[in-house]
């Protein structure tokens, strides 16, 4: 196979995959927004279960990751700001960068690894053991029963986790600022909020909305398209995590660009 053939083939395959993910996305929106008017509701119990799994059980890991990132940012920021004699502004550096950028992206990556992988593995196993087909023959639509609750749960819980992560990250910075850099707590807190505006928080939350859709759709797509037994489930899980990581970073670059250039 020559190089053009390889490139052409993988382009076609990627194109088909994008098309399929979009189709899944629109079907999900249909079951979420239009089907309820036809009396086909989404079971509250399923959504609740997924919210507990995606949200509540992710709190601890989000707490750890953002807390330490806050600490690292504070030390790194202090090291550089010290040269300008502006160590105090470590607080604003952390609050703005965490709410706008680092919080949403990092938490999305953590959730893609924890929740996205679990979704892909679960749906993949259901696919290879005929459970998806069984749902379908019982006239229970797999998208309605499996995809929509996971989609909705991530859509609600990822921004919620981001809010928690933002606060915890700032607290991590606060710990370093007060105990290591000897900034007074009151001064630290006031500097923390000095340059932080509502728009920073909102753009961060908007990003995490988009990331949630990416994680849910990619994980469900790979899960539902699993074939080839246990090995196939492993492949789907890996693919799901890798492709959502790439897409999260890519979407972040695009969204940051849009926010940056629209505010200049």
């Amino acid at each position: 196979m020559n190089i053009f053939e390889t490139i052409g083939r993988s382009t076609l395959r990627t194109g088909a995959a994008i098309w399929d993910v979009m189709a899944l996305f629109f079907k999900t929106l249909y079951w979420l927004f239009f089907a309820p008017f036809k009396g086909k509701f989404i079971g509250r119990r399923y959504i609740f279960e997924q919210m507990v799994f995606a949200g509540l059980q992710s709190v601890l890991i989000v707490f750890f990751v953002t807390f330490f990132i806050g600490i690292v940012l504070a030390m790194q920021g202090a090291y550089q700001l010290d040269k300008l004699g502006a160590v105090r502004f470590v607080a604003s550096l952390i609050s703005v960068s965490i709410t706008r950028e680092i919080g949403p992206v990092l938490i999305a990556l953590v959730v893609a690894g924890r929740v996205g992988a679990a979704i892909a593995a679960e749906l993949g196993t259901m696919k290879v053991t005929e459970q998806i087909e069984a749902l379908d023959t019982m006239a229970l639509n797999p998208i309605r029963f499996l995809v929509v609750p996971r989609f909705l749960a991530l859509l609600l819980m990822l921004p919620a986790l981001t809010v928690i992560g933002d606060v915890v990250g700032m607290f991590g910075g606060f710990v370093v600022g007060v105990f290591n850099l000897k900034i007074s707590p009151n001064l630290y807190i006031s500097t923390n909020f000095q340059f932080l505006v509502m728009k920073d928080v909102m753009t961060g939350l908007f990003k995490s909305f988009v990331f949630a859709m990416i994680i849910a759709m990619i994980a469900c797509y790979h899960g539902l398209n699993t074939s080839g037994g246990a090995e196939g489930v492993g492949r789907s899980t890996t693919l799901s995590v890798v492709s959502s990581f790439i897409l999260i970073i890519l979407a972040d670059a695009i969204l940051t660009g849009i926010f940056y250039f629209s505010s200049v």
Partner: protein
Amino acid sequence: MAEEKEVVIKIENLVKEFGGRRVLDGINLEIYKGESFVIMGGSGCGKSTILRHIIGGLRPDSGKVYLFGEDISTAGDDKMDGFKKRFGMLFQSSALFDSLTVEENISLPLREHTKLDEHIIKIMVKMKLELVGLHGFGHLYPSQLSGGMKKRVGLARAIALDPEIIFYDEPSAGLDPVVTAVIDKLIVDLSEKLSITSVIVTHDMNSVFRIADRIAMLHKGKVLEIGTKEEIQNSKNEYVKQFITGSPDGPIGFFKPDENYLQELTK
């Protein structure tokens, strides 16, 4: 006798290809109400593919599939859902939902498709479990059951909505002879007690002759012979004879022809 009966499933000239390979090559079948119809044939002869066409999982490349007298090869999703509520299916791997208990597995279709009270659903689940001889196992998860018990729970789930037809995909796969006999007896009981039409896909000859009213023998995507149990047992067709006796020698080739063998080896 058969001619007077009502036809519930009719397949006309069904053709299906996967990646250029013709898996089904002009299948014609009629299945009557209340009978137990076995589709038998070797691995990869297309018997499961036929089943997937009848339950709406696959669409034919050409030809027609009629279920309850209506053409389902062009039916929309909503219409197909209506049909799906009228039949049940027992999967080869049972396909129980791992995350739900036995009771929840069986009650799922009842809960989603009927407006019955919770306590009536509970009673119905108990009745279905009783029917498959698993009274008192409702609180267990599928991972805590043996293969034969899973099959029976799968069967209880398939009959949850009191279907008119039940499809069985390799009901004896992976089970020991005694459990196979138990499952076979259940299949016969269900079709007699509830007068359900049964369509069974299998290659287990012991099961076939225990269950079947009529049998279709499939080979390489074509129906070789259709007939009652006795007709098939006394068949003159060499293929059918070889399949029934399970002999390695006969027209059903397992080895490739010799002519190109040397060529292929040295290629």
